[in-house]
């Protein structure tokens, strides 16, 4: 369905904002300042430009230097067949190299999500790598199946919102922690492979892989809610990063491929 390597632009990846009516102040607090994506050649103060996995640019998500600040890049399409889909991407995460410290626990988490709707339900598979929390190492992949209640936005009764990236409700995948290749200083970045499979017919996970680790996803579920009024056949994909302290955290994303297993 799509393959984006960010050498020709952001190619449809944009910032995420919460719903509003009449006033920007109606946006739920968690959505008010999600930072936007940018094109990066990954320039480091000590070694210069790295470039991307493929070509010069990748999509960079950068938080504010404020604990729990998040940055999100989302691409919005629709699906044409209720069958298996697969998302693949290469990602690398780092804190801002503003200190001569290893800083490997400064990024709290990064993640990937789908936002889907069929005739009956809105379904939101969310997976995140919790790197560290409050300065303590974690190194686990987590999913979310319980959601916070919908809030009515504005006065028309047509707009609702819930902050699905909130910090509560995350559950560890049933597996050992997965240490990733942070590398030895804050300016060295190694790309990691991600693959998420999901079946739009059964609205269930079919696969999840990070580098050499293939996870059993048979026992995990996405967030599910009744279908909403104007989201038919929605297929959104998003990446995000969250920082664990008052320092910027970055997620770089390159070579995103979304494919579907059907003919026609």
């Amino acid at each position, binding site marked *: 369905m799509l393959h984006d390597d960010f050498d020709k632009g952001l190619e449809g990846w944009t910032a995420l904002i919460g719903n509003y009516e009449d006033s920007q102040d109606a946006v739920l607090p968690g959505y008010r300042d999600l930072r*936007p994506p940018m094109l990066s*050649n990954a320039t480091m*103060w000590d070694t210069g430009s790295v470039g991307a996995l493929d070509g010069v640019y990748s999509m960079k998500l950068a938080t504010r230097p404020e604990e729990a600040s998040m940055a999100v890049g989302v691409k919005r399409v629709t699906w044409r067949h209720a069958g298996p889909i697969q998302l693949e991407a290469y990602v690398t995460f780092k804190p801002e*190299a503003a200190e001569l410290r290893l800083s490997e626990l400064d990024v709290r988490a990064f993640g990937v999500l789908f936002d889907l709707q069929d005739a009956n339900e809105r379904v939101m598979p969310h997976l995140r790598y919790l790197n560290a929390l409050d300065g303590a190492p974690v190194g686990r992949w987590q999913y979310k199946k319980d959601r916070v209640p919908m809030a009515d936005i504005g006065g028309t009764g047509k707009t609702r919102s819930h902050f699905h990236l909130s910090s509560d409700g995350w559950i560890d995948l049933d597996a050992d922690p997965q240490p990733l290749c942070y590398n030895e200083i804050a300016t060295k970045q190694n790309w990691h492979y991600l693959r998420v499979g999901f079946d739009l017919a059964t609205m269930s996970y079919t696969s999840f892989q990070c580098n050499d680790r293939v996870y059993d996803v048979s026992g995990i579920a996405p967030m599910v809610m009744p279908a909403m009024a104007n989201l038919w056949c929605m297929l959104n994909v998003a990446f995000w990063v969250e920082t664990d302290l008052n320092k*910027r955290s970055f997620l770089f994303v390159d070579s995103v491929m979304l494919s579907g297993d059907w003919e026609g």
Partner: protein
Amino acid sequence: MRRSHTSVVERNRVWDGVFETEPYEAAWASEAICFVRTLDASGPIADADADARVQISPDGIHWCDEGTQLSLAREPGVTFAKVAHFGGFLRLVGEVPNGAEIRVIVYLTLKA
């Protein structure tokens, strides 16, 4: 066709005192316009200086003035600054006078 992109780097943000927009990478672009839209303003700002300065950086961490300035609108409106040949990173810095506030949306409009 020349590539272009507009990023909203501040949205519904209140500036009081010293402000800095977040570093934005734009090495692919050769020109930029920084638009500042004032949504509302309050306090002793009418006759005070409330200028912002464009800054550039080799690494997104260490910054210097590029030389371009813009005045912020004291009532709802839009002002802008044009820059070119700015390297890789851009941001806007400035200071709102004591006791004053400006609520803004800031756009970086970039073109290859």
